[in-house]
């Protein structure tokens, strides 16, 4: 028998979706699931209309509204947002696409509802006009963000032209302390590799820490793979994955047969990766960003880095500019900095376990009266679940706002935003200049750190409270 070359999880999914390899052209790759939303799809539908094209497989595209819709109840006040939503409604009607619209009890952030509905499954190729599509890689699916031109390609052909990325194993070893979790792990990785460190790679997260993570924790890690510039993040499917999917609306009807197929997906022993990184999380403190990209993170026990200590000049200038924007000085302690806003939500950290973590801190406590605290569930289903558990009361009794689901303050194009000059502790994924509103200053952190900081009104080491 001919020897079989051991393959990675990424190799296996890629190989199974090659439609055609032609010399001089990228691979034509088949896409199993396409998620769309109101902001990056209208121009793609306009393109289809211009060319007189229909959808090749309308049942493989699923729509929802999340980015520009408000998190308040009632009609959309912003006429531009209302127009985007009504445009998507017209497009899904004209082209025969399933939609979880504003009134749907199953709507939510696109990367929250895909897994929740069981649409996200191991071995699938999944794309969406949104960079945080990497979230779905937690299930052992090859999932990545695409631009609007590619949204049109998938609508019309169910395919994309893609060059295969290189593979990198990210082995996460050690033991996490109490109060330190998945968000801290990914922020620590980003602080190590930087925002361009993963460019050109698909990251496969392995090791005992990842194996012990729940699906929701794995989603938090995979979600922020793009912040390292990676094409996608992956976690091999295992019993945790299968248990999560069992019984969900769109789980395969013959579930046992699907599980047997999924069990063949994990990387073979001896499979070759193009690169390998190890992160030992033993002794890791809760992480927080201080700068204007997600790679600018430090332990909460740390101090603001000094630009003069940076090895290269462009790094020095970037850090100086970031600190100027943030109004922070080199050498200052991070913990204890006063804050104005806390946002608990986004496709990174708005799932039920994230809300339970935040509630663990806020139960029986009050948020600092100076701090506006916003809790935004990732989907309407999570909202109902949280309310059934009484978490909404924990939040409102503490003085926090409890909202309808959506992208909210992560992207600040829906009415929820941080005012210029204000400091926010946010469980979202990006701290770019102006990301949470013009002039906003963002500290990215875990739900635990965010809740603890809401109580004290300052950047806080949550380990003193758990």
């Amino acid at each position, binding site marked *: 028998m001919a020897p079989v070359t051991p393959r990675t999880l990424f190799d296996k999914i890629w190989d199974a979706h090659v*439609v*055609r390899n032609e*010399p*001089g*052209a*990228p691979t*034509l790759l*088949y896409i199993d699931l396409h998620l769309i939303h109101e*902001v*990056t799809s*209208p*121009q793609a539908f*306009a*393109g289809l209309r211009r060319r007189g*094209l229909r959808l*090749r*497989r309308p049942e493989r595209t699923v729509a929802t509204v999340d*980015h*520009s819709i408000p998190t308040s109840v009632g009609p959309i006040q*912003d006429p*531009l947002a209302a127009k*985007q939503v009504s445009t998507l409604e017209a497009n899904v009607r004209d082209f025969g696409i399933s939609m979880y619209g504003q009134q749907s009890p199953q709507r939510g952030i696109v990367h929250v509802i895909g897994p929740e509905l069981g649409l996200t499954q191991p071995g699938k190729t999944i794309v969406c*006009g*949104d*960079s945080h*599509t990497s979230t779905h890689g937690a299930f052992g699916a090859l999932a990545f*963000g*695409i*631009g*609007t*031109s590619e949204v*049109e*390609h998938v609508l*019309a*052909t*169910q*395919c994309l*032209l893609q*060059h295969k*990325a290189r593979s990198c194993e990210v082995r996460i070893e050690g033991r996490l302390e109490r109060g330190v979790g998945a968000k801290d792990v990914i922020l620590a990785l980003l602080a190590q590799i930087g*925002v*361009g460190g993963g*460019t050109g790679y698909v990251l496969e997260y392995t090791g005992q820490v990842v194996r012990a993570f729940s699906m929701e924790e794995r989603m938090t890690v995979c979600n922020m793979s793009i912040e390292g*510039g990676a*094409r996608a993040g992956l976690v091999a499917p295992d019993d945790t994955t299968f248990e999560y999917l069992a019984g969900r609306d769109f789980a395969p009807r013959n579930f046992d047969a699907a599980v047997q197929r999924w069990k063949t997906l994990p990387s073979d022993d001896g499979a070759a990766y193009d690169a390998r990184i190890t992160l030992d999380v033993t002794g890791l403190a809760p992480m927080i960003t201080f700068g204007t*990209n997600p790679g600018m993170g430090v332990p909460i026990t740390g101090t603001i880095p000094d630009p003069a200590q940076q090895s290269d000049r*462009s*790094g020095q200038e*970037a850090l100086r*500019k970031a600190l100027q924007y943030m109004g922070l000085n080199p050498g200052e302690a991070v913990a204890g900095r006063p804050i104005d806003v806390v946002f608990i939500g986004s496709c990174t950290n708005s799932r039920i376990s994230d809300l339970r973590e935040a509630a663990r801190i806020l139960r029986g406590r009050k948020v600092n009266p100076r701090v506006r605290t916003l809790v935004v569930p990732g989907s309407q289903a999570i909202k109902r679940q949280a309310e059934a558990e009484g978490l909404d009361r924990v939040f409102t009794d503490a003085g926090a706002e409890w909202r309808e689901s959506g992208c909210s303050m992560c*992207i*600040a*194009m829906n009415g929820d935003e941080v005012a210029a000059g204000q400091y926010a502790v946010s469980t979202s994924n*990006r701290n*770019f*200049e*102006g*990301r949470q509103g*013009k*002039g906003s200053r963002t500290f990215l952190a875990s739900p635990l750190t965010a809740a603890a900081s809401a109580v004290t009104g300052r950047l806080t080491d949550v380990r003193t409270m758990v």
Partner: protein
Amino acid sequence: MSTTPAVRTGGRTPFKVVTSTLAPLMMENVDTDQIIPARFLKIIDSEGLGEHLFEDLRRASDGSMRDDFFLNRAEYRSASILLAGRNFGCGSSREHAPWALVGAGFRVVISTSFADIFRGNAMKNGLLPVALDAASWTSLAALVGTDAHVTVDLERQEARWPGGSARFEIDTFARTCMLAGTDELGYILEREADISAYEMRQAAEEHS
């Protein structure tokens, strides 16, 4: 003979050679929120974004135009080549970023590296991302503010400037599309038979 498959022509302006002075954005990790802030994404077409290119970098906190930002300076107004620091275009997948750059008159961005999604989006909109080696980039940086013209030649995959030149790498297929002024969709649509055959194979495997 080229092994690149034929692509259907039409649709976009072919990209051959661009010659221009340089507009400088000497920052690394310029993210797509800097290129076009999210509040300008509430549109259903791709028009008008050029006016808001680098909106928050362009304006002071009181809303006035900063006269130290290149876009607000007369000497850079006619430049169609942007010189920027490494990892340009990181962050979100919004194609609004290249739409805004093209809308403001840019045809080329030169850096030492680009974020993946941005690079793909740019080439689909006739905006050429040119990744040069660090030494060449530094040579170009020295020309900023002079009236030196830089030529970017896609056919020859070469950037030329007074006193120097450098070759750049680019995806062969995307290059063919840009030179012809076509897009990828025509090519994919012509592979219908392959796609149908794939779908039949996949359905058979899932029911086996």
